[in-house]
């Protein structure tokens, strides 16, 4: 099998996280439409948001958004500046490290928060 | 299968493509046959530059270039041809630039030039910047630019078609026989005019800068058909091949200021102080021509001043010191060479010297032609109608006994172009003639013998033996004894070659068969080299006889023509050197 190097791994992750975020976007807009129908409907939706499954999903979503965003930022840099293209491996690792660090901090806060 | 074209070009290196381009510009139906893909040809390995007296960097004149080439050739080059080459070089190089070749530039936007071995101003006064370059990949850029222009002009390419024979009817060439490597089919290519541009025979030697595919095909094909070979004894050894590998460190490295160092000189590494060459060629030092430097290196090693100090020219080496040039010059002017040193030797040329030893590099001799690229039947200039040759395969002779750096690229573009122009003339006045018989019968028989002969000999044994004996007995220095040994060994190997058979019976990409055929061609080259070297009882240029250390203008100011008589037997003929302007003088630098 052809080796999956840094750039290719990032590309695959970018696509996977992208699809995940779009899936969330659909759910989010769908539930938002429900919420706009009054306090009762709103509260019902909020209750589902508070389930463990949904909260775990939201924490994962944070990870997806962090990676997709940071990697997207790296890609823009790489496509628009020679400086970044020359250092693509360094920047990719930086993306990973930043994404993981922010994910741990943000995820911890999100999980701890009372919904 | 039978193909019919106005013209066939065999070989897709610089000379072949330049010729094909010329023909395509005149709307002739032209096909290029190559045993490789076009940009794989060995022109792409040429690094340093192409000589042309543009005078962009400092005053220069084609006449000085003319003189340097004559002197470099040790007065064996034909002066009428050299004069034409040096004058044509200027417009040919400019034309290449107009084809888009990305030459490096001077600060005022002109083609940049650098000094090179043996190139001087004012008839030997001081080194001159004459080599037009594109970083250290000038050959690569020439090859790609010419290929691109051929694509633009929709030249028809037959890639991986290995030409094995000429079709000669009466005394006229009518095309070639080619073996299609992908299908194993033998194809007949009929043409009014054929250009051979197949390169040299460096792979006859064990240490060489040449490609694996550099197997003297064109020379052997002609030799077998009764066309003589001219000046085969002259084989250039380039001073700076990478230790053991033979990969070339271009003369551009010394052109930019690189200095050769022996073991007594190690303290001077990085200082830029003169090395041992200063004593041998006081005027141009490390930029002396290649034969001079190679011999000097050989002597240094032999006298125990090699880096290892073993005194064995086979294994000992010297240093090429670039350290004092600084990272900037090394990285921008010599990027490829630095890359090679890092990849293959794990040497960082910015910080440490590169271990080098002389490597087989270039065949000055080859198929005799006139200045229009027409192949000659004999020393009396009788042309072979319809057959042309240019580049390393040919001997015009502009390089004589030793080629100057950059003149190989000058040779291919100038004579590829001139050959093309003469082919245009020839095509306009010639009709197709009828082919008789089965022109491919001989080659089919040969292939059948190699594939189904049942002999017990192995290609690799014969090849290894040949390369070793040529390197040791027919190398930088030669004697009657060593050459006799070489000749006899080659004769024996030729006998054994008759018993070669290949295990691979497939039709598609039978590379084993291809290597067997290449070995047959190489054995012809090796044979003619050894025979010609044995007969020339003098030292001239790259041909250094320890038993005849002096140049002998009285008896040997002439070209050798070696003819095939029958297997094991050759006959010699001689052609006087054309001298127009520069009378032979002792060659000191």
């Amino acid at each position, binding site marked *: 099998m052809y080796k999956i190097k840094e750039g290719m791994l990032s590309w695959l992750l970018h*696509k996977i996280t*992208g*699809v995940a975020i779009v899936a969330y*976007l659909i759910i989010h*807009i*769908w539930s938002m439409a429900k919420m706009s129908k009054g*306090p009762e409907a*709103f509260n019902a939706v*909020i209750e589902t948001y508070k389930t463990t499954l949904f909260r775990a999903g939201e924490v994962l979503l944070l990870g997806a958004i962090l990676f997709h965003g940071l990697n997207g930022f790296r890609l823009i840099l790489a496509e628009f500046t020679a400086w970044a293209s020359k250092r693509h491996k360094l920047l990719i690792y930086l993306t990973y490290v930043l994404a993981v660090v922010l994910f741990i901090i943000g995820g911890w806060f999100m999980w701890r*928060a009372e919904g | 299968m039978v193909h019919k074209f106005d013209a066939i070009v065999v070989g897709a290196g610089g000379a072949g493509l330049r010729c094909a381009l010329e023909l395509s510009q005149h709307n002739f139906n032209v096909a290029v046959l190559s045993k490789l893909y076009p940009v794989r040809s060995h022109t792409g390995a040429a690094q340093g530059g192409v000589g042309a007296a543009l005078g962009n960097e400092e005053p220069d004149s084609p006449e000085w270039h003319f003189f340097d080439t004559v002197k470099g050739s040790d007065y064996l080059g034909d002066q009428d041809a050299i004069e034409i080459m040096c004058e044509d070089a200027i417009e040919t190089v400019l034309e290449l630039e107009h084809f888009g070749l990305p030459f490096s530039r001077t600060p005022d936007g002109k083609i940049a030039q650098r000094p090179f071995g043996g190139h001087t101003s004012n008839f030997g006064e001081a080194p001159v910047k004459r080599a037009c370059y594109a970083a250290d990949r000038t050959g690569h850029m020439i090859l790609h630019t010419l290929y691109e222009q051929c694509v633009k002009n929709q030249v028809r390419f037959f890639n991986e078609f290995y030409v094995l024979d000429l079709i000669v009817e009466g005394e006229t060439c009518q095309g070639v026989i080619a073996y299609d490597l992908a299908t194993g089919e033998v194809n007949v290519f009929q043409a009014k005019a054929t250009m051979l541009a197949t390169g040299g025979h460096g792979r006859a030697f064990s240490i060489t800068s040449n490609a694996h595919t550099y197997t003297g095909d064109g020379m052997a094909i002609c030799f077998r058909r009764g066309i003589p070979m001219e000046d085969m004894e002259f084989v250039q050894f380039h001073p700076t091949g990478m230790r053991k590998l033979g990969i070339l460190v271009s003369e551009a490295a010394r052109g930019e200021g690189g200095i050769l160092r022996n073991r007594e000189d190690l303290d001077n590494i990085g200082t830029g102080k003169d090395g041992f060459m200063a004593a041998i060629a006081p005027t141009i030092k490390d930029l002396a021509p290649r034969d001079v430097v190679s011999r000097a290196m050989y002597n240094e090693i032999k006298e125990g001043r090699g880096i290892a100090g073993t005194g064995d020219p086979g294994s000992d080496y010297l240093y090429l010191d670039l350290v004092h040039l600084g990272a900037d010059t090394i990285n921008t002017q010599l990027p490829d060479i630095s890359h090679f040193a890092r990849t293959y030797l794990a040497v960082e040329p910015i910080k440490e010297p590169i271990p080098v030893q002389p490597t087989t590099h270039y065949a000055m001799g080859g198929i005799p032609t006139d200045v229009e690229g027409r192949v000659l039947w004999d020393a009396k200039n009788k042309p072979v109608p319809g057959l042309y040759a240019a580049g390393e395969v040919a001997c015009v002779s502009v390089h004589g006994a030793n080629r100057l750096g950059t003149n190989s690229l000058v040779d291919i573009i100038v004579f590829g172009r001139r050959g093309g122009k003469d082919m245009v003339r020839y095509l306009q006045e010639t009709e197709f003639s009828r082919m008789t018989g089965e022109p491919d019968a001989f080659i089919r028989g040969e292939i059948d013998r190699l594939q189904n002969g049942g002999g017990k000999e192995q290609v690799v044994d014969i090849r290894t033996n040949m390369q070793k004996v040529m390197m040791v007995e027919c190398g930088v220095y030669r004697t009657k004894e060593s050459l006799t040994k070489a000749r006899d060994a080659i004769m024996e190997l030729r006998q054994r070659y008759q018993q070669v058979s290949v295990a691979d019976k497939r039709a598609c990409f039978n590379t084993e068969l291809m290597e067997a055929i290449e070995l047959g061609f190489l054995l012809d080259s090796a044979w003619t080299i050894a025979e010609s070297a044995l007969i020339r009882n003098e030292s001239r240029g790259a041909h250094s006889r320890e038993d005849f250390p002096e140049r002998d203008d009285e008896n040997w100011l002439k070209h050798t023509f070696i003819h095939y008589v029958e297997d094991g037997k050759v006959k010699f003929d001689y052609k006087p050197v054309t001298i127009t302007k520069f009378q032979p003088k002792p060659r000191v630098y």
Partner: protein
Amino acid sequence: MSSRGSQAWLFQRVTAVLIFLLLGTHVFLYHYLMGPANWGYDILGFGAADLAKIKADPNLMKYYSLAKVFANPMWKVFDVTLITVGTYHGFYGIKAIIDDWVTHNGWRAIGNWVTYLIGFIIWVIGVVAVISFTPKLY
């Protein structure tokens, strides 16, 4: 959708940057100021009476704050913009994946149109929800 690859490529990058800015504000406002940061209510202008009601039902707190926000039409415009840019970027991304992964021409065309259609429906739902959200304020 642009027919020219160059414009689509540029749009994808421009929308990425916009999303970064808009989504940052969105998250900060809805999920921080209205969530963990209680002082957010001061900024939104909640009085003591509002806070008392909210205490009785934590869920209502969110509803109220949202209502307060949407009382200002600027924020509706903001949300419509975010939905538009987000659905464009997201669904164009899906289309790009389909372009790559689905090699059969017919299936690719079908996949693209289905993507456009879903994207459009989601966009309409989102926009309608934002615009039609007119909660009563206490």
